[in-house]
């Protein structure tokens, strides 16, 4: 059942510009580094930080905003497919369970974001090779940091999907999303327990893996709370 639901969800998002945004997001992050390195290449060489280590740092510094904004946009798109045409009744009237519908939406979004993350890894690798940075290519670090950010942002995905699916007015989840972006922009000043800080992979122990574990655990918890709330609500 889940497989079929996911397939229909992918069918519904065709030709809505969602795939375009999935590619544009990671491309945008790397494009900002193209501008950054294009303008300041000499400065990087002069400061002796023209290396893969600092390049990955630079890419990772921008990823949280792009990822959170991407989550906000994609979740809102997902919810508006049914909201706009009042199709919730029709979807729920099919021989499917409500948790199945919710799980399928979540899985579809997760797949889109994994595709984005893979593309981010590839694009950053490509541009890094083009720059000819100092030192060997740290393939593992590159993959690790790109995916760490993704796992650490799962709680935000759960929260945004929940709010987007239960709001009639999509202005509410989007305003919440703007808050999230501003919080992640100020991640340095935030306490460690706020979910919007986690994608920055920064914490007081200096161990990014803690953010990943928290992301997975709390992400699952928020997912379950959202799903249970969605199941209990009346379909209007």
């Amino acid at each position, binding site marked *: 059942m889940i497989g079929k639901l996911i397939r229909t969800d992918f069918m519904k998002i065709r030709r809505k510009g969602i795939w375009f945004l999935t590619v544009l997001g990671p491309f945008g992050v790397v494009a900002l580094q193209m501008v950054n390195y294009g303008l300041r290449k000499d400065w990087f060489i002069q400061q002796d930080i023209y290396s893969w280590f600092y390049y990955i740092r630079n890419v990772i510094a921008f990823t949280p905003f792009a990822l959170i904004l991407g989550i906000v946009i994609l979740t*809102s798109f997902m919810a508006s497919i049914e909201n706009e045409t009042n199709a919730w009744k029709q979807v729920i009237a099919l021989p499917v369970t409500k948790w199945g519908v919710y799980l399928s939406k979540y899985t579809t979004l997760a797949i889109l974001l994994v595709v984005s993350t893979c593309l981010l890894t590839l694009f950053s690798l490509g541009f890094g090779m083009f720059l000819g940075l100092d030192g060997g290519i740290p393939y593992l670090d590159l993959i690790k940091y790109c995916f760490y950010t993704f796992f650490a942002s799962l709680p935000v995905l759960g929260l945004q999907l929940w709010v987007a699916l239960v709001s009639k007015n999509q202005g509410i989840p989007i305003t919440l999303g703007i808050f999230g972006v501003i919080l992640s922009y100020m991640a340095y000043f935030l306490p460690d327990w706020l979910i919007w800080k986690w994608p920055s992979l920064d914490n007081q122990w200096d161990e990014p893996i803690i953010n990943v574990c928290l992301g997975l655990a709390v992400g699952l918890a928020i997912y379950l709370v959202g799903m249970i709330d969605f199941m209990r609500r009346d379909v209007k």
Partner: protein
Amino acid sequence: MISLLQSEWYKVRKSNIIYILFAAPLVGLLIGIVGGSSVFPVEVNQWAGALLMMNLTYALLFLPLVTGVLAATVCRYEHQAGGWKQLLALPVTRGKVFMSKYLLLIMLVLVVQVLYLGSIFVVGIVHGFTDSFPMEIVWKSILGGWVATFPLVALQLWMSILFKSFAASFSVNVIFTLPTILAINSEKFGPYYPWAQPVFMMNVGGDTSEFFFIPWEQLITVVGGSFLLFFIGGFLYFQRKSV
């Protein structure tokens, strides 16, 4: 025209707009209180120091992004169940409908700015600032930031009329807003980028001899020029839109 504005106001009042408007002072408080304010030397006016930091995040991300949400909200009723047909079947011209939506939007942005001003006061009280309140600088940046959003509002109104879904018009907004983070660091490109203008207009460290924090030429060419482009574009699009 007045009655159109009244009906627009009536529609907007019933659409949870209050939560979106109050996001502005909340963001202000958040940046002002969490961000810490003791990064500046003592000689700097405490208010100006806090403002410098608050305004940056506020004008860089929040203000451009929230204009898009407001624009999508004022078009929400019309996108549902044939609202455009009903509205345009009334004895009103499309030009007037567009104008009244635009006027309502810039009024809402002004409310957002004033609420943000309120949050500046609260931040000062929380931190216990004793310096005199730099009224002139504050008004300059509040009104300047407001003027700088005029073209952004025009584009977002266009996009909100064009797209039915919030997410679509919001993604256009995001695509243009994120590069601002880099644009403001570039002396060559920054002054010509419309989405970076709120940052320059609200930057209290700027040149205080002018009426606003940016020179008149830049205001008229960049803000005025992009305003004309987006406003006329949206206006013409709406004239031809099939409803």
